[in-house]
Each structure stands twice: as structure tokens, then as C-alpha cells.
């Protein structure tokens, strides 16, 4: 045991220690809707074997779980097998292959989702929860389809981890992977994930954001890390800042355990803050909101007691589908989000898609620079059907729940874009009822510089700090070659945020921010100084930020911000805030 130290970059903080397991990428099933007639029998055969294997697997699981944990625990697997065995359920899938030319995987998803949505429409909560059973069943069959196809193509790999099956890792472990997509990150058996080590991925990658919101420590190392760790090797993450230790000695392990205990105590201390308001020492109340998108997170978010949801990303709802969700299906989702917050404000962001994250069922033209391209409100204005149905669904949800809905428009550059959305809301409101506020996301420097031009058109602003930073510094946040160039702490970015906040306040608009910046203690300090009404962040970050807010006075934060704006680099402004926080004894 030799304490081999490797320098890494922290994606999600926290100490972790445990054995390494490798996650290999699961093969991906063919997703097509244009299978020629001659190939359809082949798709039928693939579907048939995948269904048979899934049922066999479920029955095996039921028997095993029944023996290990008791008969009641096995019921879920038995009932999944029963549902999958249903003739009509299977018949619907075969019909989509025969009549529509869908590939097996798309046919399965479509039928599973259709049934899931119908279950979600039921009144009783127990039956509504069965919606996820249909989705799980669908995922299981699709993963079998993927493996069958991969074997047929000769691209099959060692099936260490097959996506969508929540059984990996089987014992508490640190997951080592080349990289992680958001859907892979959440498809692990998370109660057994002690930490993540990845070979590539930025601090602001979606997987890193997810790891932080789940409170799971994660680090990124260099590309050769996969060959330096053997399966089962003991690892210690972040005992020392930005360090991975392979084969820790006894003493290191003890230290790691002690550090974990200290973290636990700190978490307990922060938990005590949960019921207290985020109020500065001088009595300024600042709303701490949660960012959300995945329906599964809603219970945890509600439990963390935020002042509202400051950013609900509607993309998740669209990405999990194989066709555009109907207005009615959207309305059901949005109403559930509104209801989950019990009357606290919820800000829905209109569908924010572009060339870098197209929807699987809506072909997107290739663009040389998708981040500067057809995305956000630009895309929506050119696709009015999508825009109008989404606005209508939000208004229906508002009318049905009797709660006001806040609609946020992404990627705004000019008042005319906001005007389009506002006009649609006013027109549809007259028909559907409901009550809505509409606000602009400030992500482009143009929007940040011209907030007063939106007076009377935008009810609130919300800074999208991730994109505002990347556009202001002309630095791609996921480009590792740019190192620390991307930083919200650059004095230029801070100055833009302050100007937008001041101008918005002068125009009587509410001011918010919904980027990652708000979840850093140093960032929250500067944002409080700028006078933001609400900070929205991963819900996991709320307690730590609340501790900062409750430990400062606005006048001292303002003085610090003035000092920062006269500085020349992001490193300096961040350190200034860090030192201030440390001096106050706030934070870890």
C-alpha cells in the first residue's frame, strides 16, 4: 500500500474512499423511424428476442430477490414481467414496426411512454406511480435490443454496466469511467456510488452539475487514468484538495474516514439552517431558489425547502420522448411541478434547444457554431407551433392549479423577441385563463447592456450566468484547452451582471440569477452585493449559500464588490471573496 498521489480537478466536492469499479458505455440501440419494408421482419425478430430475454431476466430477478430479500420485494419484478407479457402491449410494439417502419427500440419507447402518460393521468397516487414502471420496463427492453444489435454488428463489449438497469454498482464503490453523460450519471444505482473518477469532462459539464446536485464527490483526471487504476483498487478522493490517492495506506484511510465524519457534521449543521430564512445580518431577505428539470428530483427539492424554483428546464420532458409531447401531456407535467411547490413561485424556461442539444425526433440542420446559432427563442419563433403549445400548456397548468406561472424566455437579444412571447401569452390567456408573468433570461451581452429597453415587456430578468460568461469571454465552457479562461469571476462578467441588475431594478423588474455562479459561496457574496432578489441553484447548494447570506452584511459585500471590479483577473476577484469568507469563518 503506497499512497500513489495523482493530481486531479474536482467536479463535485467531498471526500470519498472505496474500491474502484469500471463503468463501460452501454451500446446504444438503433433509433429510426424509416425502416424499409424488407427489413421490418428483422426488427420484429430483434424485438421478439429482446422481449423474451427481458421477461426471462425479470423472472430470474424475481426468484433471486424473493430468495434473498423476501417475497414482497420480488413483486415489482414479477409485475414487470406480467405487464411485459401482455399480448396487447406487445402487439402495439409490433404494429409500430409493421405499419410505421419504426425500429424495435423506438417502437418500445413509444408504447411504454404512451402507457406511462395514461397512468400519470390517473387520480390515485399509487396508480400514477406505475407510470415509472412502464418507463423502466421500456428501458430494460431497449437495453436488450441494444445488446442484441451490438452482438450482431460485432461491436459488443464487456457488459459491465448496461444502462437503464439500476443494479450497477452492486456494492458501494467509486465509479471510474471515460466520461459520463447526464443520463448515465442518473442510471447508476446511486446509493452504491461513493464517488466518480472520469477521464474527461469539465466543471460545468452537465454530468458534473448533476453530481453536485446529488452530493456525490467527483473528479476528472487525465486520459491515462483508466489504465492506471485496476478494478477493485482502493481509492481516496479529495482528502487533499484536487488529489486522487490510489492504494492508500492504513493511515491515509483513517484520515479519510475522519474527514468524511467532519463533512457529515458540517452537513448536519447546515441542515439546521433549513427552516431559517436566507437573511443577511442587516436584515435583507434574499430568495434562495432551486434549479430543476427532472421530475424525479421534485420530492428532494421540496424537502430541501427552497423559496421556489428559479429555473425549471423543460428540455428534459422533451428529450425523454420520441415525438413532441402533446399540449395536454405537457400541461400534466407543468401542473405537477406547480403543485409540488405548494404555491411557491416556479419559473419555467421555454424549450431551450439548439444544434448542440437537438431533440432526437426534430432534425436540426448542421451549423458551424451551434452556440451562436438557431437556438432558444430564435428557434421557437421560427417554430410557432412548439412555442404556442408550450405556452398554452403552461397557462392550462396555471388555470388548473390556481397558481401563477412564471415563463422565462431563453437567449433573448431584442425586445421584439420578448414581444412575440408576450403577445402569445396575452392572446392565449384570454381563452384558457391562468395567470402568467413573463421574463427574459440575460445570457447575451446585448441583453445585459440594454435591460431598460425591455421595460414594460419583461416582468423580471434572470441572469443565465453560464452562457453570459461564455459569450462575454468568447470561451467555450467545456473546452479544456481554455483552462481557467471561462470564469464568472472575470471583472468584465461581474460588471455586466451588476449593470443588468441595477437597470432591471430601476425599471421595476424582479432580479434573479439561475446559473452555476449562484451556487458558489464567492459568487453568492458578489450577487448579494449586486442586490439580486433571488439566487437559483442546484438544490444541494442551498444550505451552504444560506450560511453565507446569513453571515454577511450588504454594505461590506458592496465594498468588496467595488474592490473586485477594479481588479484585473478572475483569480484575483475570486480570491478576494474567498479570503473574506474564510476570515468570517463561513463555509467549509
Amino acid at each position: 500500500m503506497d499512497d500513489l498521489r495523482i493530481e486531479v480537478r474536482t467536479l463535485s466536492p467531498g471526500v470519498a474512499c472505496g474500491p474502484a469499479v469500471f463503468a463501460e458505455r452501454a451500446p446504444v440501440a438503433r433509433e429510426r423511424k424509416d425502416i424499409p419494408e424488407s427489413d421490418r421482419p428483422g426488427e420484429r425478430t430483434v424485438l421478439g428476442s429482446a422481449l423474451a430475454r427481458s421477461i426471462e431476466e425479470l423472472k430470474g430477478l424475481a426468484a433471486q430477490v424473493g430468495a434473498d430479500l423476501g417475497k414482497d420485494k420480488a413483486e415489482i419484478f414479477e409485475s414487470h414481467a406480467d405487464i411485459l407479457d401482455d399480448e396487447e402491449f406487445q402487439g402495439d410494439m409490433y404494429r409500430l414496426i409493421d405499419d410505421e417502419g419504426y425500429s424495435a427500440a423506438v417502437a418500445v419507447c413509444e408504447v411504454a411512454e404512451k402507457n406511462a402518460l395514461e397512468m400519470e393521468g390517473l387520480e390515485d397516487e399509487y396508480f400514477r406511480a406505475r407510470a415509472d414502471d412502464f418507463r423502466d420496463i421500456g428501458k430494460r427492453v431497449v437495453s436488450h435490443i441494444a445488446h442484441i444489435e451490438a452482438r450482431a454488428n460485432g461491436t459488443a463489449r464487456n457488459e459491465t454496466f448496461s444502462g437503464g438497469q439500476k443494479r450497477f454498482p452492486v456494492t458501494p464503490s467509486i465509479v471510474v469511467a471515460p466520461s459520463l453523460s447526464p443520463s448515465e450519471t442518473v442510471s447508476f444505482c446511486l446509493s452504491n456510488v461513493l464517488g466518480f473518477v472520469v477521464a474527461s469532462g469539465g466543471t460545468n459539464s452537465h454530468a458534473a452539475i448533476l453530481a453536485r446536485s446529488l452530493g456525490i464527490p467527483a473528479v476528472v483526471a487525465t486520459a491515462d487514468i483508466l489504465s492506471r487504476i485496476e478494478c477493485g483498487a482502493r481509492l481516496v478522493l479529495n482528502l487533499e484538495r484536487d488529489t486522487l490517492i490510489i492504494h492508500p495506506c492504513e493511515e491515509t484511510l483513517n484520515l479519510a474516514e475522519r474527514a468524511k465524519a467532519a463533512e457529515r457534521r458540517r452537513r448536519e449543521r447546515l441542515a439546521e439552517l433549513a427552516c431559517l430564512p436566507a437573511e443577511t445580518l442587516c436584515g435583507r431577505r434574499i430568495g434562495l431558489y432551486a434549479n430543476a428539470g427532472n421530475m424525479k428530483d421534485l420530492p428532494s427539492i421540496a424537502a430541501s425547502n427552497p423559496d421556489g424554483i428559479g429555473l425549471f428546464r423543460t428540455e428534459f420532458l422533451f428529450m425523454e420522448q420520441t415525438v413532441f409531447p402533446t399540449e395536454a401531456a405537457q400541461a400534466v407535467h407543468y401542473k405537477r411541478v406547480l403543485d409540488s411547490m405548494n404555491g411557491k413561485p416556479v419559473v419555467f424556461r421555454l424549450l431551450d434547444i439548439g444544434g448542440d442539444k437537438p431533440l432526437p425526433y426534430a432534425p436540426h440542420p448542421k451549423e458551424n457554431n451551434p452556440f451562436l446559432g438557431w437556438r432558444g427563442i430564435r428557434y421557437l419563433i421560427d417554430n410557432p407551433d412548439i412555442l404556442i403549445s408550450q405556452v398554452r400548456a403552461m397557462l392550462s397548468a396555471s388555470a388548473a392549479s390556481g397558481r401563477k406561472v412564471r415563463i422565462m424566455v431563453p437567449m433573448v437579444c431584442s425586445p421584439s423577441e420578448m414581444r412575440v412571447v408576450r403577445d402569445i401569452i396575452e392572446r392565449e390567456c384570454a381563452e384558457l385563463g391562468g395567470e402568467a408573468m413573463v421574463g427574459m433570461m440575460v445570457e447575451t451581452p446585448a441583453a445585459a447592456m440594454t435591460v431598460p429597453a425591455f421595460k414594460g415587456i419583461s416582468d423580471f430578468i434572470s441572469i443565465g450566468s453560464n452562457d453570459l460568461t461564455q459569450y462575454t469571454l468568447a470561451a467555450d465552457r467545456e473546452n479544456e484547452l481554455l483552462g481557467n479562461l471561462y470564469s464568472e469571476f472575470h471583472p468584465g462578467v461581474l460588471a455586466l451582471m451588476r449593470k443588468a441588475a441595477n437597470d432591471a431594478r430601476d425599471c421595476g423588474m424582479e432580479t434573479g440569477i439561475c446559473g452555476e455562479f449562484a451556487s458558489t459561496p464567492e459568487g453568492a457574496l458578489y450577487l448579494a452585493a449586486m442586490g439580486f432578489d433571488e439566487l437559483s441553484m442546484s438544490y444541494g447548494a442551498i444550505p451552504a449559500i444560506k450560511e453565507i447570506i446569513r453571515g454577511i452584511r450588504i454594505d461590506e459585500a458592496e465594498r468588496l464588490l467595488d474592490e473586485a471590479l477594479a481588479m484585473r483577473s478572475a483569480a484575483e476577484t475570486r480570491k478576494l471573496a474567498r479570503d473574506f469568507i474564510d476570515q468570517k469563518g463561513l463555509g467549509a
Partner: protein
Amino acid sequence: MVEKELLIANPSGLHTRPAKKIVDEAKKFASEITIVKGTLSGNAKNLIKLMKLGITMGTAITIRCDGEDESVALEAIEALIAGLSE
């Protein structure tokens, strides 16, 4: 055609497992067997249709059988539902 009204008494209603038992039983008969809940109805030989009725404890349902073995079928389904326990 024969039919009978029943009250569902087991705590989680006709969730997946009990529904599956009804389906298995119903399939033994030639008659068309329908379960009616208010304005909704579903074929008792189809598991998913039955689940989608969302039948919870305390729900009043009507079992309707139509076919050559309708009386035996009704009796069998009725006995099964009465004997459901968690």
C-alpha cells in the same frame, strides 16, 4: 349477460398483482368479461386495461359477463376478488 356490483376491499386496490390474478382467471372462460368503474370499463382479460381503470380500495365496480359460461365466470371472478388479500 349477467352482472354484479362489488366493493373492492383490499388496501391497495386492483394494483398490478391482484389485477394479474383476475386476468389469469378471466382467461379461463369463453365469455366476454368486462369490469366497469363509473363511466370507464375495461376488458378483464387485459392486464394493462385493468390497471388503467385505477381501481382503489373502496371503489364500487361492476363485473359483467357475456357468453356461454357467463354465470360460472361471474361466480369465479367474484370469489377471487372476495379472497384477495395483500
